[in-house]
């Protein structure tokens, strides 16, 4: 499947047979009822967009073959508002997010399921656009969307669309990536700038009027992971720092082995516009969500090669080392501040609240 073919199939205008829904521009309860309207959505929207033999068979379950190895499985639900934001949309995010969760184990993601909960009244045009976007994301990640489900809830009982995706991947036997593997002396790398997604969402959700647009970094990271593994990098631990941001991930590493973590604030890659927005709102980029970045822990002597490998990929051009695992202060993440002092970077309580002044 190519992104072009996905694009052709998934618009109302592209519908081939007589379609009563052409006169029905919005989702109605019947679209989740399992009857004709449901069938039309599947036949005219999802099948042409997702286009693969597993889905086309329309069985009760997708039947797939897996290469040898352990199986990695992950599920996530996406409830983002607004549904379309600078740099992406909820459809793309739902595919990339799950692909990334599977990929962070070192698995090659292969298959993804999609369950949508639609709110009555949602424009079918928008659903088509999100579907197209999911198909494109799957295509770029090299995964197939092999099974799905659609339900409709009454108007006012949903936020347009909620999407759940579950991903399946296979881990080669030699690979063992886990936070418990980190050791003092290991290098901590990030694949690029932090805080982009969270600030992109905040900038549109809260109606802030910034002069520049901050774009979400949503992207599938499995190819970047594959590049590191192919280069023979021994990845000790790896995470995509989504909710809770970099701080949550680093604390997870520190907690898993009771090692300490030291990062240098001046080495954190943060886009200028993201840094400015954070300053203005009293946010700390350490705690802001990312959707297309990963934190990788590798042995110190492989750090440079790992950074170079990531930089060779377009998703890793800003990759850099930000710190190291240490034997001191077990379980605690410490940041060296710009002026040379230190502070503790704890996991955050609840969500960050924009400050008053």
């Amino acid at each position, binding site marked *: 499947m190519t992104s072009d073919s996905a694009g052709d199939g998934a618009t109302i205008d592209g519908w081939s047979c007589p379609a009563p829904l052409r006169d029905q521009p919005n989702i109605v309860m019947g679209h989740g009822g399992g009857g004709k309207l449901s069938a039309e959505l599947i036949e005219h929207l999802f099948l042409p967009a997702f286009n693969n033999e597993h889905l086309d068979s329309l069985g009760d379950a997708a039947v797939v073959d897996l290469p040898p190895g352990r199986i990695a499985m992950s599920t996530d639900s996406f409830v983002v508002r607004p549904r379309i934001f600078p740099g992406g949309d909820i459809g793309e995010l739902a595919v990339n997010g799950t692909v990334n969760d599977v990929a962070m184990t070192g698995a090659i993601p292969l298959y993804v399921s999609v369950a949508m909960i639609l709110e009555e009244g949602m424009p079918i045009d928008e659903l088509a656009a999100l579907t197209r976007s999911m198909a494109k994301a799957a295509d770029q990640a090299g995964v197939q969307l092999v099974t799905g489900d659609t339900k409709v809830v009454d108007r006012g009982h949903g936020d347009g669309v909620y999407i759940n995706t579950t991903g399946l991947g296979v881990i080669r036997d030699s690979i063992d990536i886990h936070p418990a593997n980190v050791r003092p002396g290991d290098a901590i790398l990030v694949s690029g700038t932090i805080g982009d997604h969270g600030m992109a969402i905040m900038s549109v959700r*809260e*109606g*802030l009027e910034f002069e520049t647009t901050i774009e979400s970094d949503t992207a599938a990271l499995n190819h970047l992971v594959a590049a590191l593994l192919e280069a023979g990098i021994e990845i000790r631990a790896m995470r995509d720092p989504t909710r809770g941001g970099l701080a949550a991930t680093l604390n997870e590493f520190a907690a898993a082995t009771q090692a*300490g973590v030291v990062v240098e604030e*001046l080495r954190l890659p943060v886009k*200028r516009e993201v*840094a*400015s927005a954070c*300053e203005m*709102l*009293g946010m700390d980029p350490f705690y802001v969500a990312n959707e297309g970045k990963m934190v990788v822990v590798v042995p110190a002597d492989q750090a440079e090669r790992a950074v170079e490998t990531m930089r060779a990929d377009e998703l890793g051009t800003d990759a850099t080392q930000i710190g190291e695992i*240490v034997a*001191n*202060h077990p379980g*605690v993440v*410490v940041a060296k*501040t*710009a*002026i*040379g*002092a*230190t*502070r*503790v*970077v*704890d996991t955050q*309580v*609840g969500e960050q*609240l*924009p*400050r*008053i*002044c």
Partner: protein
Amino acid sequence: MKYLDEFRDPELAKRLFDEIDRITTQHWVLMEVCGGQTHSIIRNGIDKLLNENIELVHGPGCPVCVTPLDTIDKALAIAARDDVIFCSFGDMLRVPGSTQDLFQVKGESGDVRVVYSPLDAVNIAKENPDSQVVFFGIGFETTAPANAMSVYQAKQLGLTNFSMLVSHVLVPPAIRAVLNSPLNRVQAFLAAGHVCSVMGFSEYVPIVEEYGVPIVVTGFEPLDLLEGIRKTIIQLETGTAEAENAYPRAVSFDGNEAAQQLIEDVFETTDRNWRGIGMIPESGWELSARYADFDAARRFEVGDIDTQEPDVCRSGEVLQGLIKPNECEAFGNECTPRKPLGATMVSAEGACAAYYTYGRFIEIEGVSA
């Protein structure tokens, strides 16, 4: 980043630390008035690197922290009404009232919205003519111009469904209250740069003359703070006491006169109860008689408010600089950002939250706490 990186330069910071070392010959106690400065000091670790003869105590300049409990309870009662859309700055939402916070009211069906500007609340009022839109107008002089502008605009637009629950507080009376306390140890003040960008610093001249303490207008970035501290120490060491400006890129002697005129039109001075501190005469602003119709406290009858503060919370002493947050027995134990007992543990500008967030509760091996 422009206007930020320049003021975080490690080399220049080191030079200022060295210079402060050179000129400091004895123990001095300085109070940074503003919670934003407290956060910057703790976040950057300035107090750890500063000459050990200089003691920084944290002042009452956290607007969220000093908003009186009965006002919070009033806000909660108003926000819970079916006909009200209650708008607030984000960091008010987790501030504990007697029994609840705004987050809980929101969870229980109250329409509570975070806005970044009170003018957004005016727009919400325009768009929702069938609802009463109430903005929680708190803050020091810094937020007053925008709050005043929203009430002014609402009046110009003839909006009858917009009102403000006002609890503004003022810095100069708070400085006097600290100085008048028999327990006071503070020998000089770093005045809050943002407050002074609105009000100027002419109003500190009488305080300096009356009490003989240096007051230095100071910014928020590490180099701003160090420069403010340096200027203050020079005054202390040479026995002078002046109102001085170490933040000239944002502050002038007379301040923003257009903003001050608007404030004068919309607000008038009133006695104000500060949470944790008590009544300070003429230390607040309320809506002036011309704008009394926009006063949410008058528009909504919320009944008798019976306030209850937790016994163990010592935020009042923290706010007056009498104790450091981690000297409170509840700090990090029954009082954490997850379950704050006092507002100082909630706000981004609260001293307790700063201490907790940046780890001033654990002694860590290999790192000076």
